[in-house]
């Protein structure tokens, strides 16, 4: 009973106050034949033993800080996290608090989330941000819910670019399976020739939403302005799934006319943590604020005339609207949202731009060097940010196995999701990769090409 602060004597006094003889007596309502099962679990460990066991498991992994040089991205990125971020996240006042339903004693969380909302608006150029979703993929699925609700279910088609992250597209398919919704765009185009200008041919009067990614899954940067205009001409909304680091360098989705901008906040100071938790940001235009899911923090004053913050427009949410709510979201990613706010506050306008430029410079150096290797080459010629598709002309699995022997975590195997891109890997380069790392990658890949 490691964390139970009640002595046997106190327990007995409490049982007497209740008027029962034993703890077991409190469970008489539980059917006797199933009561007190014997659980087949290992015996309890002490803290010292638990730390030892968990350290053993952690060390059984090869991590990208001390064991491997990583060129793997595809939706989760290895960025530097300033020390301050975790120091703030380890404050018990933040991480052991509940959702701020009692604003008088939750102003810390509320102001931090209000600032997070503001920072996300600054980054995307949009007018309103909610307090977060689970991750980028579920935020994109919630964009579908919102657009569907906006047209009261009268438009039943969503066009998703084939260059949206494959797992995001999979989550959208899962979320919408009860909605009698047509998903188009997934596999209508040969992926090697696909251009965003192909998408408007699928947008019709029945389309509620068009979803594209920025930079796209292959790292390419497009100006989606014309696509947005074409979608708007049919009355559809447009959602852009954006990488937040890229937004420090490239024009904002808002300036292209996007109605909804979502994405995963992990690159903003959150460890990869084998995939989560991260945070899904969700921003939109002010006219859609009542249709947006999730919690929202707004500014107000308290009875002492002090500027303060509360959860607002709660009438949209499940605990009030129940089955008529457009989303069931309740718990979101409060602490992770706080982490991104601390990161953005620290890096600020210069620092984040510098990170973005470092990613851009290093990725372009890597691309230039790799494309010189005989038999290898870049798959696309459009401008890109910090990821690019490289043709390696042999099974990626084989190439990556060889890289791993040299302590290098190679790129994502694009053939898994796009059969036409078999023998292509998606390489990600961030500020964490030194020139020496990149030169090592080039050297080892050159060996592969000569094998």
């Amino acid at each position: 009973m490691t964390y139970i602060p009640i002595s046997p004597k106190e327990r007995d006094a409490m049982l007497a106050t209740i008027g029962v003889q034993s703890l077991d007596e409190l469970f008489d309502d539980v059917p006797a034949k199933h009561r007190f099962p014997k659980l087949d679990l290992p015996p309890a460990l002490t803290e010292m033993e638990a730390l030892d066991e968990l350290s053993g498991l952690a060390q059984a992994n090869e991590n990208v800080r001390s064991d491997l040089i990583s060129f793997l991205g595809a939706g989760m990125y290895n960025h530097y996290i300033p020390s301050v971020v975790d120091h703030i996240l380890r404050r018990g006042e933040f991480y052991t608090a509940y959702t701020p339903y009692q604003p008088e004693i939750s102003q810390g969380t509320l102001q931090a989330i209000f600032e997070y909302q503001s920072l996300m608006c600054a980054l995307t150029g949009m007018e309103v941000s909610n307090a977060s979703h689970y991750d980028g993929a579920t935020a994109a699925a919630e964009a579908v819910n919102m657009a569907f609700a906006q047209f009261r279910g009268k438009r039943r088609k969503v066009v998703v670019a084939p260059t949206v992250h494959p797992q995001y597209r999979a989550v959208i398919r899962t979320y919408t399976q009860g909605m009698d919704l047509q998903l188009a765009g997934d596999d209508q185009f040969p992926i090697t020739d696909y251009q965003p200008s192909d998408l408007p041919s699928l947008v019709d009067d029945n389309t509620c939403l068009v979803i594209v990614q920025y930079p796209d899954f292959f790292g390419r940067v497009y100006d989606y302005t014309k696509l947005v205009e074409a979608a708007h001409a049919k009355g559809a909304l447009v959602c852009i799934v954006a990488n937040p680091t890229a937004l420090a360098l490239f024009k904002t989705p808002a300036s292209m006319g996007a109605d909804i901008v979502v994405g995963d906040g992990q690159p903003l100071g959150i460890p990869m943590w084998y995939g989560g938790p991260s945070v899904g940001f969700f921003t939109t235009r002010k006219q859609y604020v009542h249709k947006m899911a999730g919690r929202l923090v707004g500014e107000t004053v308290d009875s002492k005339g002090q500027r303060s913050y509360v959860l607002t427009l709660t009438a949209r949410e499940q605990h009030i609207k129940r089955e008529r709510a457009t989303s069931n979201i309740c718990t979101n990613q409060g602490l992770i949202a706080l982490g991104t706010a601390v990161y953005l506050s620290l890096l600020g306008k210069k620092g984040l731009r510098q990170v973005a430029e470092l990613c851009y410079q290093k990725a372009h150096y890597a691309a230039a060097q790799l494309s010189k290797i005989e038999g290898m080459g870049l798959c696309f010629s459009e401008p890109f940010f910090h990821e690019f598709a490289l043709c390696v002309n042999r099974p990626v699995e084989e190439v990556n196995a060889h890289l791993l022997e040299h302590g290098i975590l190679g790129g994502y195997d694009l053939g898994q999701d796009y059969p036409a891109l078999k023998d292509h890997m998606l390489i990600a380069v961030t500020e964490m990769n030194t020139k020496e790392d990149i030169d090592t990658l080039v050297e080892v890949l050159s060996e592969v090409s000569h094998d």
Partner: protein
Amino acid sequence: MIDVSTSLNASAPDQTKVKIVEPTIFELSSSGRVGVTMPASDVPETALPPEHLLRPDLPLPELAEVDVVRHYMHLSSFNYSVDTGFYPLGSCTMKYNPKINEDTCRLPGFLYTHPLQPIETVQGNLALMYQLQEWLKEISGFAGVTLQPAAGAHGEFTGVLIMRAYHKSRGDHKRVKMLIPDSAHGTNPASSGMMGLQVVQIPSDSRGNVDLKALEAACDDTVVGMMLTNPNTLGLFDENIEKVIELVHGCGGLMYGDGANLNALLGIVRPGDLGFDVMHFNLHKTFAVPHGGGGPGSGPVGVAAHLVDFLPEPLVGIIEEGEDDLPPLYGFVKPAKTIGRMKAFHGHFGGGLVRAFTYIAMHGPDGLKDIAQYAVLNANYLQARLRSTYRIPYDRTCMHEFVAEGRFEGSDVRALDIAKRLMDYNFHPPTNYFPLIVHEALMIEPTETENKDTLDAFADALIKIAEEAKTQPELVKSAPHTTKFGRMDEVKAARELVLCCWLPENFSDQ
């Protein structure tokens, strides 16, 4: 509706009218300050893309490291938290979060692994996930568990998708109704609503159980299933639970268990043994994953044998059996009739799964039973101490929580006032106005990690407030008085809808 021509940004604060306790991060900004210096580029320069693809400015704040630290430390001091006091929030299980979990989840091998690494390089992560799946199966009596859902509501949605897929796979297409008791959390009907299901509300009987007659009348061949929290939100274990499940199964429906209140059942009874078909766990309630001021949570889902094939993909499985000294090779497997993927990657690994694993490992079977027993002891003790002062509408042995009425004859003091007044006594208020079936509800869940002194002090405060409600009602109705912030103008917040910080003049081109 708001006037869409107005901005959602705050305007410059007029300090003659409004007092600023802590400036926003934007107001603290000063052009030219630097919080982090990144290394210079070590590669030959490449020209940036054409101007029309670039953004002209980046309106983020500029602060030094110390400015940022002080700002967030100031904010942290405005929060009430489990680390600073008693947090008896009903149905939220605000137990103490052991510090060792904060260390284990931050081991470099966990923090710095990428979700798409080859499985051979992440056997530690996969072994942990596999073991946690097995432990959760054993604790709940289910045949399969997915760790992917990100929170309780996400787990519910997963469960409802599985129930729907099960009926569909049997060619049973006419099931469109979900039965939900009137005491249910709002997420239950919302999760069903997301699937386009029709929600049928089932009333509670006078002892707080599901009304069997009403349930029987609602059970027919159009029922997908029933979503039941047990113990329910009154903190009561349904005395007819086996009959309830029998009725739902009898009409071909499936039984969904909302695991929000699982803390009361650890080592006491396994929902799978009772006949539940699906249940979500809230690792952030039952297994001490901290609530983080509103997440991240973690909401794994367990299912009985007939639903294992419908679980989301991927699950962690053994790809190659181990031998003698050789451990097995863990990897990902795809259930045969999977509903698909619920989120990107593998769930809340670092924040949820590692902490919960540590917690379960440190408790073992006896420790888990202690958790439930002492959680129930603490709740019954508080109920016994408060019974003569506050009306308990469903007064019987409770499980981990109970619901009292926050109103007194001849007084206009309400539950909300009592909640706010508790803050003056340095307690976090209980959940109020939920469940909806109790007038002026005060829903109290002490958890097992509070000592008798704390419980006594809390009971004393509530008894004192009941007296104040009679003798000095205005004092209670205008509470809190001793907190840094007073009651908020929530109407103003919703009407004026200021959702973004005020950006100081010329902020973007400073």
